[in-house]
C-alpha cells in the first residue's frame, strides 16, 4: 500500500513538474499531421490513457497487465496508463456510467460479445479510423470480420479462441481409452462418456464425462451457440433475426441427452467446470482456450494431464464453433488521446508482448500473421479451431439473447422440459428481445 502511495505521489510530482516545464506545449503533434492514421509522428505532451480492464483484478492476470503498463510507459514516457477496474460482470455498466458522467475511457479490454453494447452506446470507434492500416491488414480476415458491425471493425482482438474441447488424459487412460485419440464427433464422445461414466476419483468423488456451461451468465450463451454451430445449425441470421433450424434442435437434444445420462454437471458456470476439471472430476469439457488459466490456478499441475482437441462434429455439421476473443474496444477522445490509444493497442498486440502470455498464462490462438508462432503447444492439436470458427452476428441485445439461450438449456436439463416445447418458449422470448 505504502509503495503504491509513494508511486502515486511521485507520479503527481512528476506530472506537475512536467506541466510547469512544458508550459508551451499544446496539443500539437511534434511532427505535424493531425490524424491518428499514418503513424510515425507522436505527441510529446503528457497524456493519461484510461484503460478499462476487469482482468487486472483477477489474480491470474494481474502480473501480466502490470508488466504491460510498465513496459509501455517506459517506451512512451509521456503516456501514463490509468486502469479503470470493475468486476467482469460490471465493467460494461461501469464504462457506460462513467461516459454518462463525461468521464470517457480510451480503451476497453473487452469480450467479443460485449462489442454490440459499446457500439449501441455510441462509444466504440471503428478500428479503421483509429489504427494504422498496415497493422490492421496483418490480422486474419475471418477473425477481424467477427468483430465487425455494418462492415466496420469495432474490436481489435489480442488473440482468439473457439469453444475447444479440453480433456483429461489421465482419466482417458484409466478408462482404457487412448489418451492421444480424443473424440471427433458427438457419437464418439458419447461412447467414451459411457466408458468413463461410473468412475470415481481416488477420494471417491464422481467423475463427470462431459461438460458445457449452462448457468445464467451471458458467456454461457456463447458456448451453447457453439454447440449449435457444431451441429451445422444456425441461431441468428446476418440481419439479427432469429434463424433456428434442425441443427439447433439437434444441439439441444444432445444437451438434454447428456443431462439425462447424468454425464454433465448441471447448471454449471464455466468456472465450475474449470474447478471440476482441475480436480480430476471432469473428463472432457468445452471452454475458451484461456479458461485453462482458471484450471491451473486451482491445480498448478493441471498441464500434465490436460490436452486440447477440436470441437466435436454433430449431425451434418463440420464441428465449427463460435469465434470468441479478448479484444480492445477503442473510444475516440480527440487526437492526442486517440494517438495514445493507437500506440497502446499496437504495442500490446505484438509477439513481443503476447508470446509469453499466450504460451504460459492463458493459452490462446493467434489472430495475426506476425504472431503465427505464438500458438502454445497445448493448443497445437486444435490449431484449426479458430480458422473454421463462425462469427456470431453482433446484434445489440446479444447479452440478453445469450441469457435466453441459457434459460433454454436449463429448461431441457434441470427443468426436464420437452425440447420442442422449450424451443417454442425460447422463440417467443428471443423474438421479443431481438425486437428490443
Amino acid at each position: 500500500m505504502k509503495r503504491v502511495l509513494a508511486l502515486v505521489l511521485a507520479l503527481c510530482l512528476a506530472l506537475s513538474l512536467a506541466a510547469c516545464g512544458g508550459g508551451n506545449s499544446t496539443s500539437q503533434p511534434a511532427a505535424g499531421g493531425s490524424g491518428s492514421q499514418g503513424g510515425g509522428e507522436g505527441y510529446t505532451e503528457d497524456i493519461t490513457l484510461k484503460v478499462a480492464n476487469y482482468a487486472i483484478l483477477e489474480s491470474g492476470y494481474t502480473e501480466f497487465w502490470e508488466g504491460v503498463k510498465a513496459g509501455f510507459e517506459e517506451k512512451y514516457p509521456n503516456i501514463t496508463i490509468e486502469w479503470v477496474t470493475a468486476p467482469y460482470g460490471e465493467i460494461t455498466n461501469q464504462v457506460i456510467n462513467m461516459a454518462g458522467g463525461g468521464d470517457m475511457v480510451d480503451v476497453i479490454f473487452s469480450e467479443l460479445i460485449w462489442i454490440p453494447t459499446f457500439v449501441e452506446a455510441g462509444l466504440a470507434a471503428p478500428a479503421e479510423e483509429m489504427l494504422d492500416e498496415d497493422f490492421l491488414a496483418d490480422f486474419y480476415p475471418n477473425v477481424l470480420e467477427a468483430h465487425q458491425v455494418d462492415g466496420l471493425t469495432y474490436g481489435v482482438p489480442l488473440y482468439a479462441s473457439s469453444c475447444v474441447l479440453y480433456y483429461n488424459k489421465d482419466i482417458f487412460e484409466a478408462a482404457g481409452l487412448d489418451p492421444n485419440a480424443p473424440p471427433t464427433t458427438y457419437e464418439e464422445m458419447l461412447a467414451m462418456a459411457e466408458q468413463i461414466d461410473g468412475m470415481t476419483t481416488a477420494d471417491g468423488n464422481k467423475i463427470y464425462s462431459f461438460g458445457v456451461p449452462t448457468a445464467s451468465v451471458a458467456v454461457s450463451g456463447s458456448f451453447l451457440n457453439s454447440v449449435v454451430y457444431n451441429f451445422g445449425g444456425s441461431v441468428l441470421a446476418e440481419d439479427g433475426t432469429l434463424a433456428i433450424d434442425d441443427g439447433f434442435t439437434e444441439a439441444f437434444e444432445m444437451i438434454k441427452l447428456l443431462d439425462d445420462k447424468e454425464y454433465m454437471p448441471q447448471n454449471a458456470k464455466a468456472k465450475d467446470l474449470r474447478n471440476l476439471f482441475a480436480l480430476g472430476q471432469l473428463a472432457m469439457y468445452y471452454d475458451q482456450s484461456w479458461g485453462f488459466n482458471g484450471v491451473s490456478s486451482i491445480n498448478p499441475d493441471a498441464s500434465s494431464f490436460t490436452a486440447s482437441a477440436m470441437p466435436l462434429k454433430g449431425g451434418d455439421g463440420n464441428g465449427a464453433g463460435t469465434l470468441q476473443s479478448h479484444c480492445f474496444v477503442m473510444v475516440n477522445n480527440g487526437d492526442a488521446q486517440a494517438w495514445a490509444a493507437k500506440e497502446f493497442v499496437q504495442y500490446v498486440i505484438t509477439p513481443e508482448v503476447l508470446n509469453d502470455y499466450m504460451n504460459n498464462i492463458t493459452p490462446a490462438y493467434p489472430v495475426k500473421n506476425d504472431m503465427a508462432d505464438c500458438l502454445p503447444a497445448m493448443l497445437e492439436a486444435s490449431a484449426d479451431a479458430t480458422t473454421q470458427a463462425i462469427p456470431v452476428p453482433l446484434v445489440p441485445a446479444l447479452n440478453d439473447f445469450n441469457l435466453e439461450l441459457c434459460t433454454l438449456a436449463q429448461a431441457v436439463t434441470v427443468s426436464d422440459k420437452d425440447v420442442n416445447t422449450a424451443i417454442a418458449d425460447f422463440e417467443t422470448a428471443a423474438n421479443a428481445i431481438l425486437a428490443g
Partner: protein
Amino acid sequence: MKRRQTLSSILKYFVLAVILLFLLFPLYWVLITSFKTNMEAYAFPPSFIPKSPTVESYINLFTVNNVFFVYYKNNFIVSGISAALTVLVALLSGYALSRFHFRWNGWIVAAFLSAQMFPMISRLISLYGLMRGMHLINTHPGLILALTAAMLPFSIMLMSSFFDSVPVAVEESARIDGAGRFGVLFRIVVPLVKPGILAVGIYSFLLAWDDYLHAATLIQTDGLRTLSIGIALRYLGELSYDWSLINTISIVGTIPMLLLFFFFQKYMVKGLVAGAVKG
C-alpha cells in the same frame, strides 16, 4: 401428568436444538472450512473437523490478497461516518417529531415510512445521474450521504420513540431554569436517550456495513470500494473459486460485527425492542 411434562420438556429441548443448529452450524461450517486446505475442502464426504488444520488461507489473505483490507478499511470509514451522521440527523428529527405536534408531522412521517419501502434498485438508475450532477459520484462523501438517507427513515422513527419515553416535565423544569432550546435538547434530553443513540448508531452501522448496491453503483475506483462489492468482484471472479479463501473472508468480514454485537448487545437489543414495540 408428570410424564406428559417430561415429554413436552424433551420436545421443547429437541426443537430448541434443531433451531439453534440451523442458526449456528453454518457459521461453524464456514469457520472450519477456512482452516482446511482447498484440497480437503473439496473432499467428499466432507470432514467435520479439519484433518490437518492450516492457517494458510489466513496468511494468504494477509499477505497476498491484502487488497481485501483496503475494502475493509473503506467499509469501516464509510459505515462509521454514515452511522454517526445518521445518529445526528435522527436525533434532531426524532426530537422534533416527538415533541412538537404540528399538522405537517403526519405527512413527514408518511413520507419517511414510504421512503423506507422503496427498493434501492428503483432509485439506482436515477441516483447515478443525480450524484454525478452534484459531483459526488465515485466519492466516499457521496456514498455516505446516500447511505445515510437510506437509513434515516427507520432511525428517525426509532429515535423518536426514545424521546417519547422522556417526560416533558424534565424539559420544562430546565426551561424555567433559563436554558435555551438547544441547551435543553443537548444538555438535558440527549443524555437521557443515550441507549437510543447507541441503538440507532449500531443499527445503522450494521446496515451500512451490509450495503452492496449503493457501493456497486456509486463507486468505480477499486481503492474506494467497500467490503461486499469488493469481495464480489475480486474473489467471486470469472476465472475460478478459491473456497478456503472465500470462507476465510467470510469469517474475517463478520468478526467485527460479532464483536460489536456482543459488546453492545444490551443497548441494541433494548433499543430495537423498545422502538419496535412502540412503533
